[in-house]
């Protein structure tokens, strides 16, 4: 006879120790006398830390005071946040003229608005949006921040940026409202959607040209007051340097990495040499070379903009690191992908641009974002060569006579600020990874 049950055994609920909070606690924290002691000890340490920080940073802290002596009068042991608050403008904008600070905020707002369509799923033509940010935004923002006289080139680029921004915004609105691209919408509302492609293209080009002329004439009517780069500082300067570094390190790195893997000996040797030289030198040495040695080789009295020198140094340095990251990504692509691309008749650039890079870059996202975060933090080295980036400003608070000796609070504030920025970048990269490798969880 067989031991067979005719009915299905009823499903029993999981034991209480597996489902309830107490079960979890018992299993993970209090499973033995030693673990119980360890748990209690850890809880005690956490309590000490949290209550200490809370007491120092909030309970005993002073948020409003004229100088550090007033903070001491309030509490000898609490934090003196008043100094940090008093220095907010310096920390965020550096020595930028206070009545012109809106230009920095406006520049930041423009960037957010410009990039926003990239995250909207219904927007058409995202590649064009991305390209317009890279090509036009730096000029518009650069002029907005630096001001002064616009040369003809700058006038053209600023007008181009205005046109690109306007089209981008209109495109986003039309895409969201009507779920079609701006070009299709314009053609349709002109009733030309049955006209030949060539006519349609000419109409669009004509409209763009008209907008450009209008923007050009409009921008002639105003100029922004010049602000010397020596007044740039704080978080603004940090973001400018690292922003430019991040935006140009990836393309630079891709070019260098391809150069290093090239079959052309001269290209390969030059790329390898360049990468190795820059990678074997500390960033601070490159910065010193760029700012102090470089002027020695120039004619007397010739002083190149120090900020430009620093940015060039940062870009080159990070392009070399990025090149190795990209090369690692390229190595990971199986040979079959190259061969497959060749089989369907793609040339070198076609293979790289359409088959290899899209796969390689996806693999590299964690490393790339790691480099970007590193770059953002490395930028604080420029405070050593006399630029008042955010770290330079935070350290200067303790030297300002009303706040003499106040150095812990600014650094704590800076740490929190950097954590927020870096953590946001890190989270975004995770999001990007998941999105790009949807359905391929490793």
């Amino acid at each position, binding site marked *: 006879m067989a031991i067979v049950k005719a009915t299905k055994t009823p499903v029993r609920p999981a034991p209480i120790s597996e489902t309830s909070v107490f079960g979890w606690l018992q299993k993970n924290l209090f499973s033995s006398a030693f673990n119980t002691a360890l748990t209690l000890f850890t809880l005690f340490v956490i309590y000490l830390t949290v209550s200490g920080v809370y007491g120092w940073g909030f309970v005993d802290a002073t948020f409003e005071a004229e100088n550090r002596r007033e903070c001491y009068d309030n509490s000898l042991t609490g934090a003196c946040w008043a100094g940090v608050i008093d220095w907010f403008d310096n920390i965020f904008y550096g020595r930028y003229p206070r009545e012109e600070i809106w230009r920095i905020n406006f520049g930041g707002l423009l960037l957010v608005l410009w990039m926003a369509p990239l995250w909207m799923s219904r927007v058409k033509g995202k590649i064009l949006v991305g390209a317009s940010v890279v090509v036009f935004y730096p000029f518009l923002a650069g002029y907005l921040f630096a001001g002064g006289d616009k040369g003809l080139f700058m006038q053209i680029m600023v007008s181009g940026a205005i046109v690109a921004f306007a089209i981008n915004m209109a495109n986003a609105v039309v895409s969201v409202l009507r779920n079609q691209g701006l070009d299709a919408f314009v053609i349709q509302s002109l009733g030309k959607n049955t006209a030949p492609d060539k006519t349609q293209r000419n109409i669009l080009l004509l409209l763009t040209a008209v907008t450009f002329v209008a923007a050009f004439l409009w921008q002639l009517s105003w100029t922004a007051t010049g602000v*010397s780069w020596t007044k740039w500082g704080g978080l603004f300067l940090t973001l400018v340097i690292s922003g430019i570094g991040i935006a140009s390190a990836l393309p630079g790195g891709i070019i260098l990495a391809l150069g290093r893997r090239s079959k052309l000996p001269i290209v390969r040797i030059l790329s390898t040499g360049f990468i190795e030289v820059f990678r074997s030198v*500390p960033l601070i040495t490159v910065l*010193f070379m760029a700012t102090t040695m470089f*002027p020695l080789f120039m004619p007397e009295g010739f002083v190149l903009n120090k900020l430009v020198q620093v940015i060039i140094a940062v870009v080159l340095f990070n392009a070399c690191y990025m090149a190795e990251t990209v090369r690692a990504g390229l190595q990971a692509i199986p040979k079959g992908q190259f061969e497959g691309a060749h089989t369907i008749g793609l040339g070198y650039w076609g293979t790289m641009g359409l088959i290899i890079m899209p796969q390689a870059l996806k693999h590299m996202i964690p490393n790339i974002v790691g480099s970007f975060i590193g770059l953002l933090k490395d930028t604080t080295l420029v405070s050593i060569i006399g630029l*008042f980036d955010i770290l330079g400003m935070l350290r200067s608070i303790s*030297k300002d*006579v009303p706040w003499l000796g106040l*150095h812990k609070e600014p650094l704590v504030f800076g740490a929190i600020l950097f954590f927020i920025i870096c953590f946001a970048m890190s989270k975004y990269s995770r999001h990007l990874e998941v999105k790009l490798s949807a359905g391929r969880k490793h």
Partner: protein
Amino acid sequence: MKLGTRLASAAVLAIVASSGATVATAQSTLEIVKERGHLRCQVGNPSPGYYNLDSDGNWYGLDVSVCQAVASAIFGDKAKLEIQSVSTQARFTALANGESDMLSRTATWTMTRDTQLGIDFLSPNFYDGQGFTVRADSGINSAMELAGAKVCVTTGTTTELNLTDFSRVNDLGISNVTFEDYNVRDDTYLNGGCDAVTGDKSSMAGNIASFPVPSDHKILPETLSKEPLASAVRHGDSAWRDIVQWSIFALINAEELGITQANVDDMKANSTNPNVRRMLGTEGNLNEGLGLDADWAYNIIKNVGNYGEIYETYMGTGPLGIGIERAGSLNALWTDGGLMYSPPMR
């Protein structure tokens, strides 16, 4: 990294020093400055009393005032000035390579620097010296009683070497506790990590003022070293050197003659004292040798005040001052027994 930067800056300095003589000056510094329209004056990372940033992003301090004085002498406008903040490692290189027109920062005038780095020091605008801070209740009244003490000191400066020398010469067996950052040094001292702190007396006064209870600490009377803090210019342009030097002398001379920011207009219009009239340009031709306007000294005093006023504002007891007593110190006027002395302006 620290060692790397030192090596790099040493190498740079060697190159500058060896090539210093061959850098031919096609254009005088004054011409370059006038053509550019503003003066480039080098200071360092903010240092209380000498050069600081305020919360609105403006520079202030004793050395900044010297920069403003030179800008006033040349342009009649103290705002035609770019303050450059340069790290300690790169300071003399930045002057020698033409990035800065002059240097006005807490640089000690030493023979090596004056003779080997291609720069010229001018007469000091502040005489500092190294001293000790101890707790008032420690019972120590003289540095000679510091036998066996632990002393907090910032590393990489002459301060540390002076301390070691002092301990050896007097056989005190002091142990050095070294720090990179003087804020950390002071925190360690305040938390009982060492018995005394050593540093320049000027900065000690400011630091004590920032301690929770300043009256719990005192500075010992001994001075370990001579620290004449002076401005400097590039070697080889004597005309430019004269301009900076006499701008500084004008500050001191004005104090001696009783010319202040407030009464300079009145003095210029009504004074019968020939010394005042010569200095303010209503008589004689003092300006011609400098190649500046007759109003050069008037503009200095009008824009930044005399040396005594500057001292009171930034080093003395004013709201932005760090509270260093001037009377009886080396920084008093020579008529009060100090070392602040200007050659006659005639």
